């Protein structure tokens, strides 16, 4: 086995990388979701601005605005606690994969709008509805990429360090055999 792979396995075996990744991504996601939950109507308005979802029937956008933040906070909590860790990581990865092109398209439409008068793509600043108010597109994309990469660790790791699911695991450590009677 190549030495690099052995080293990665050894580091992964400590459980520290997955723990840090869970705290970072889960914490970020929970924070962003909380900000959306605080004002659901603001999130609804910002979702509408993307113009990627049909406005009619109105139930479609309303359900997205009502459900997505709670879905995010549940997933983030599951990731932090280490319950359904892989599922939570997969879902967050999927959501980030969906948000990335959506953000880029919106930023591009602002950039190409002559009225905006923006000369550099990285100068595009708008409220993406992500829960942090107005952001610069380049820093937002960097943040998303960092989260996408980090969430791959809990998705693929074998470690279950400080995972709540371990408490309910069927594979409990076997008690040591009793010493033979003399």
């Amino acid at each position, binding site marked *: 086995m190549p030495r690099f792979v052995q080293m990665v396995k050894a580091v992964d075996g400590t459980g520290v990388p997955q723990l840090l990744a869970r705290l970072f991504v889960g914490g970020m996601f929970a924070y962003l979701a909380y900000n959306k939950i605080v*004002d*659901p*109507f*603001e999130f*609804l308005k910002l979702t*509408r601005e993307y113009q990627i979802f049909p*406005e*009619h029937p*109105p*139930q479609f*956008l*309303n*359900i997205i*605005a*009502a*459900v*997505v*933040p*709670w*879905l*995010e906070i*549940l*997933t983030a909590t*599951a990731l932090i606690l280490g319950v*359904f*860790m*892989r*599922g*939570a990581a*997969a*879902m967050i990865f*999927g959501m980030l994969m969906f948000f990335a092109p959506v953000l880029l398209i919106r930023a591009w439409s602002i950039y190409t709008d002559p009225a905006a008068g923006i000369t550099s793509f990285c100068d595009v600043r708008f409220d993406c509805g992500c829960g942090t108010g107005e952001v610069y597109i380049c820093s937002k994309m960097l943040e998303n990429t960092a989260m996408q990469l980090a969430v791959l660790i809990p*998705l693929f790791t074998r470690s279950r360090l400080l995972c709540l699911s371990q408490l309910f695991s069927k594979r409990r450590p076997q008690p040591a055999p009793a010493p033979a009677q003399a």
Partner: protein
Amino acid sequence: MNWLKTTCIETAILLAAGVALGFGMNAIRGRDSIDLNRDYKPEIRITHTTTTQSTANGEAISAANPAEPNEPTEAGVAEDEPRFQSVDLEQVKEIWEDPKFGYGVYVFVDARADGPYESGHIPGAVQCDFYRIQEDIDLVVSKTAGAEKVVVYCQGGDCEDSLLTCGELINVGVPWENIYLFKAGWDAWEDSELPVETGEEE
């Protein structure tokens, strides 16, 4: 294979639980509940009859052509935005300083959400958040009944909440000719260092 199966099952469980949680929490949030069946960006239909309006000192207020709502402009392009009479900061200030405002003949309607309203609004303005209108509308109807001028504002800039609220006021029977849109909104009022009232509605 086992990894994929576990991941898919866990994802499905979380998805189902998240959706259920979302619907459940939305149902019990009271003022912050999204009415799933409501159109939050309705088409505003305005019907009106007069154009001539003036401020307290007789100054003309800009009024759109009231003949037909959303009719094509001279260039032949239909306007996206329904046209309400608009007032600027100076005119708003005159209306606010007019004694008729104190008697309830002129009314200010703040179309922003609770947080911004409570942190500062035009003194005497009644809150009517379009998105939470079921909670506010009774008070607004009682205040605007018989009012000669109803000035509606939101944050200013690109905010559309005042426009949507104007549409809702028409739906509850406030005549178009009594409604004035203060587009520059709260930002302009605050920047002018005019008096500010904070806290919840009394």
